[in-house]
């Protein structure tokens, strides 16, 4: 037996202008699923027609869409609809992105099907006709490979940027079929009453070639400005560690790490970041890493190609000045 059908839960993002597009992680999962199985079904919690062309181009052979969910959070309705469809015709595996909605739907579906989830997957491989997931633990120093032992569809929660999206998206638009949402009762009661999109300037963390991040070592919210200045100078996206996002210095959209964005830029500059596991997981895939920190023992230096043991408040202004004067 080999893997014949994989479902991919498609996260759909709405832009400022109201356009809907599958997220970059969704396209990555579709590319990997197409590599592993002939039949790749994209599952959409919402309108399928608007995204069928993109999903098809990136490898989906069919789209299952619930249609409008009247503002409901996706977890309950999409998992209930998927569970009913699975009872009739089960896939071998279901891929979810490690995203807010991806985790919600995967968790609900796991409870519905009484099927476990393999989480934080960064690599997938087929062995003896079944999929195995590779999960990094302890901040990425150890890789654990896990397989399911039961006969239920394997639910995999996959980290962003684990796979490359299709280089030449050329598939035909995928045909859209309705995915019926059953009666949900009180459990389906959570509804969105207001959507707020934060305004951003410059390149986004997701696709910036250069990222400049600051951490607790920057001292305070005002001094974080030096990170913004350097980022602007280099055409980079500014980022941050969880510590200073929690402290409220910068918005959550800056956060790089396990619970924030996973980035893989050409160059990552970490200023005043010690390099907690939580952070390293989000940036150690960068091609070149430069770290500036006053503590020579900071874990960030274990992944740095160039490490400066020094005071960020001295080194950063000097660096900015030197780049400006070139």
């Amino acid at each position, binding site marked *: 037996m080999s893997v014949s059908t994989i479902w991919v839960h498609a996260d759909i993002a709405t832009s400022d202008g109201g356009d809907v597009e599958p997220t970059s992680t969704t396209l990555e999962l579709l590319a990997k699923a197409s590599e592993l199985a002939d039949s790749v079904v994209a599952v959409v919690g919402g309108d399928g027609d608007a995204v069928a062309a993109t999903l098809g181009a990136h490898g989906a052979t069919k789209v299952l869409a619930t249609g409008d969910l009247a503002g409901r959070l996706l977890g309950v309705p999409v998992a209930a609809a998927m569970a009913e469809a699975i009872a009739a015709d089960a896939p071998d595996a279901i891929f979810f992105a490690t995203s807010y909605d991806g985790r919600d739907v995967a968790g609900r579906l796991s409870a519905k099907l009484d099927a476990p989830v393999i989480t934080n997957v960064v690599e997938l491989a087929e062995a003896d006709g079944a999929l195995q997931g590779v999960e990094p633990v302890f901040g990425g120093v150890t890789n654990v490979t896990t397989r399911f032992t039961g006969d239920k569809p394997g639910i995999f929660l996959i980290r962003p940027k684990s796979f490359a999206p299709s280089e030449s998206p050329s598939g035909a638009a995928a045909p859209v079929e309705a995915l019926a949402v059953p009666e949900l009762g009180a459990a389906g009661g959570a509804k969105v009453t207001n959507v707020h999109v934060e305004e951003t300037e410059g390149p986004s963390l997701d696709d910036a070639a250069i990222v400049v991040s600051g951490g607790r070592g920057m001292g305070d919210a005002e001094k974080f400005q030096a990170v913004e200045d350097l980022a602007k100078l280099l055409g980079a996206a500014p980022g941050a560690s969880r510590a200073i996002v929690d402290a409220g210095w910068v918005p959550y959209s800056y956060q790089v790490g396990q619970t924030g964005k996973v980035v893989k830029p050409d160059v990552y500059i970490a200023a005043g970041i010690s390099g907690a596991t939580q952070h390293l997981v989000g940036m150690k895939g960068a091609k070149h890493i430069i770290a500036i920190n006053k503590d020579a023992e900071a874990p960030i230096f274990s992944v*740095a190609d160039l490490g400066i043991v020094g005071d960020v408040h001295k080194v950063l202004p000097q660096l900015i000045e030197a780049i400006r004067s070139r």
Partner: protein
Amino acid sequence: MNVVVCVKQIPDPAEPGALDPETKTLKREGKLILDESDSYGVEMALQLVDAAGEGEVTLLSMAPNEEVAGLRTALAMGAAKAVLVSDPTLSGTDALGTAKVLAAASKRVEGADLILTATESSDGYTGTVPEQLAGLLDLPSVTFAKEVEIADGTVKVRRQTETGYNDVECPLPAVVSVTAGVVEPRYPSFKGIMAAKSKPVDTVTIADLGVEASQVGWAGAGQDIVDVAQAPAREAGEIIEDEGEAFNSVVDYLANLKII
């Protein structure tokens, strides 16, 4: 307003973690502490009960042993009591098994209006337990809350999204997962620490809860670890002690990459 908070006691994250080579389970010897991610839920619960002017906060936790050090920390913050599911069969339990145990244990708490969790634990970080728990209890849920408010039998949540936030309304009873930073956790006072020593911890086994052993531990996890390998390490880089000129090395490095 009765709030249940699911909390996890974990090995100190400051110590490097290790897998037992025999069982491939995270080593949990030595002292366990309250997962810092859970301190936000505890604080949020205390504030909600305070705002309501009545009710109490109950902790829910599970462990393969009778460790209570982490629970005492949360009790010292102000939680009234705890239910600890302590059973050696729990070693190796996966996220779904954990949710089954917590769901069963939550039924020991009468009249719970709200169940709070962290978004993920700091040691396992699967991030699926909140929704699995809500699913098993057939309750509505809101995940990734950065603000929580209760009004008229409804919980109003500002929910984190990739691009900003959504405001979400959800009827009670419900499960809500809170992000780190939702509120600033208080430090236990001396009085709180003393009082915590005599607060009730209802210690039960999975048999007491009617959960079968086949649902928990490695047997219940429905998965096998087939390989544990060292990840390829990055090559050691150049480390320079700044004596006033180190910024030049960064300039040269960036210039070399044709970035500047």
